[in-house]
């Protein structure tokens, strides 16, 4: 009887909070007392995890039931952002949503597709600044609305095959992009018919998802937008430097040869399979996220490798040690049936130290809270530590998020594909065109 009363009270408070006009983002939201009894409830979590990673997170989520015995968590994988958005539109959203694409967070905040969590944080007396490092807020909030929270995070760096480097007389990984280009040439081996046997580095964008114009842009500190959200692709000279460097690496081997090599490796879809080029020793150096450590272990790959921060512009040596950061985010979609319980689960998933460190070990992801960052096991792993350092580096950022979500990266990717194929004779003109396209799409909103 008391359970039902508490539930009814929570609902009434929530109803009052909702109907009391919008925009009340500073009013505390109804929450569930974590220590009270509660009717058994199954909450659904949607994420884009699959295969091994799905298992790791599902196992971790069982800890929620240990903490709140009345809560059962059903975890559904392979749900990308469009699936979640469609469910929200259709009125049947999951209770908690996880996304790999923080680019969309601005749109979620803007349209309210994911609820603003500030009221919940206040009610639960969570001090954001004390729990999470400053960097995560750039990709989880937009214009004052905190519609997402990080559930672990990512950092990008350089993976290199120590056997192959030793074979070609290279003792240390490259620190500048010029060194990388040089070493890539040395490390590339060819078959008798001229096709690539081993690639020193895969500079093709559109192959593996970890190598895009965006991730490479961090090597040159190139900025996407200025404070007024106007694209700076032509005004920031670092873009031109980055693209020139990238194309030089493509041309050093040959675009056609690289495409055929990529196809032989199994195409873009082989990135997360055991046929991954780096894991099978066919690619000597690669940019990838810290999760690759877990995949190498999980796929039982025999590659001997080490990790380091990604090389940077020789003219900007201070950038070394930084890279792209930011990754998995979670939120409470609009229209969930049990917002208070959803928040409780999300709070668990984003702040509970045992949960975070357990799945951080399983996924080999960078922990997102100050507390979990202290975890010794990850700090002492020599192949993981470089990524923790990248995350801690003040110059590491995520791409600025905008209400058009991934459209800017999509437009940039299409341009890069044309550029690396040699279809863009004038780089500046091409970049100007992309700028215009992005600006125009921002108009539509």
């Amino acid at each position, binding site marked *: 009887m008391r359970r039902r009363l508490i539930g009814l009270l929570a609902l009434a408070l929530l109803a009052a909070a909702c109907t009391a006009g919008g925009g009340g983002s500073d009013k505390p939201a109804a929450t569930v007392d974590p220590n009270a009894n509660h009717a058994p409830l199954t909450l659904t979590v949607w994420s884009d995890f699959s295969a091994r990673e799905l298992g790791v997170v599902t196992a971790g989520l069982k800890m929620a039931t240990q903490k709140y015995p009345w809560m059962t968590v059903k975890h559904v994988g392979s749900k990308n952002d469009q699936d979640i958005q469609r469910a929200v539109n259709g009125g049947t959203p999951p209770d908690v949503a996880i996304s790999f694409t923080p680019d969309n967070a601005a749109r979620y905040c803007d349209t309210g597709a994911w609820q603003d969590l500030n009221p919940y944080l206040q009610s639960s007396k969570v001090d954001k600044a004390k729990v999470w490092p400053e960097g995560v807020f750039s990709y989880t909030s937009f214009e004052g609305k905190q519609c997402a929270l990080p559930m672990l995070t990512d950092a990008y760096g350089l993976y290199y095959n120590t056997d192959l480097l030793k074979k070609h007389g290279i003792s240390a990984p490259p620190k500048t992009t010029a060194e990388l280009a040089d070493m890539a040439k040395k490390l590339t081996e060819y078959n008798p018919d001229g096709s690539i046997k081993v690639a020193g580095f895969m500079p093709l964008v559109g192959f593996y998802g970890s190598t895009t114009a965006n991730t490479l842009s961090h090597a040159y500190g190139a900025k996407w937008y200025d404070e007024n959200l106007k694209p700076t692709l032509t005004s920031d000279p670092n873009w031109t430097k980055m693209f020139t460097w990238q194309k030089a690496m493509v041309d050093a081997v040959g675009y056609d040869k690289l495409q055929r090599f990529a196809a032989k490796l199994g195409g873009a879809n082989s990135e997360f399979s055991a046929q991954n080029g780096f894991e099978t020793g066919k690619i000597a150096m690669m940019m990838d996220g810290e999760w690759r450590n877990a995949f190498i272990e999980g796929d039982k790959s025999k590659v001997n490798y080490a990790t380091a921060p990604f090389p940077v512009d020789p003219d900007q040596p201070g950038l070394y040690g930084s890279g792209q950061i930011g990754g998995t985010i979670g939120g409470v979609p609009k229209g969930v049936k049990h917002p208070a319980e959803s928040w409780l689960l999300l709070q668990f998933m984003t702040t509970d130290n045992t949960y975070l460190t357990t799945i951080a070990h399983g996924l080999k992801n960078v922990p997102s809270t100050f507390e979990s960052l202290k975890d010794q096991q990850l700090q002492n792993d020599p192949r993981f530590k470089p990524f923790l350092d990248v995350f801690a580096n003040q110059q590491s950022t995520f791409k600025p998020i905008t209400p058009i979500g991934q459209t800017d990266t999509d437009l940039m990717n299409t341009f890069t594909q044309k550029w690396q194929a040699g279809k863009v004779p004038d780089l500046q003109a091409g970049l100007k065109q992309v700028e215009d396209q992005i600006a125009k*799409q921002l108009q539509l909103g």
Partner: protein
Amino acid sequence: MATTAERPAAALEQASTAARRRRRRRAARHRQLVALAFMSPWIIGFCAFYVYPMISSLYFSFTKYDILSQPKWVGLANYRFMFTSDPLFWVAIRNTLWIIAIMVPLQVLFGIVTATVLTRIKRGLPFYRTVFFLPTMVPLVAAALGFIYILNPAGPVNRVLGVLHLPEPLWFVDPRWTKPGLTLIGLWGIGQVMIIFLASLLDVPRQLYEAAELEGARPWQQFRYVTLPMISPVIFFSVLIGMIQGFQYFTQAFVVSKAGDRTNEVGYPQDSLLFYTSRLYQQGFEGFHMGYAAAMSWVMFVVIMACTVGLIRTSRRWVHYQGGFR
């Protein structure tokens, strides 16, 4: 002169004519009601699933709408954006025109060619006809996936080409070859069009060929002056349907773009597969700009109508109907 005996008879006749007229009117009304009763499923469906949505989508096209919140009136902004600011609108139009100007004629041509081959076969016609028709039974998604594998840069077709020392294009990875790759899928499924042409070709009266041969016409001339005009209604029909379907081309392009990597943009690689409906889907159901998608759909409707009317008008000049009805 009307006698008292005749006047009641006339009155009776008048009365019965009136009664007959009333009965006829009632019968007509009864017939009308019966007909409407038979038509009722369609009438309801037409109003609910055609009339109302069309008006509604016209309204949406003047709004900014993302389903989560109320539509916001923006007047002609969507249309203005479409024609002046949409970065990929004209790309989508160009790609769609490629389908209509290149793929559709190729399909019609291949349909005629395969049907002609079958007309010359005397033995084993059912076998060949079955084989040629079989690929149309394959669901579009399965066909697309099958061809993605077959046209994989490291796949069977390229291996055969390599053995023959012919160039091996990268097919669905190379933007110059993606649409030809899709055309191959389209030609593979030519069976349905072929059957119609086959029936039509067999329908051409033999006398016409014999008369032409007597006048000394070579086979090519026979084809041009006898066959073509006689099958022109079917050519017209195929081109019309092909054109309408071409404007709506979506499934194969979507499957092919996303097959390489799910995170690929619709239209990958390099927007070579971004067709009009793909762009509509991208903006409407990935970007959730529903008002804009509605605007795009209305522009498409107007264009299809205009092209259909245009095609029908020009058809009067080159389509020859045997029965003479139209």
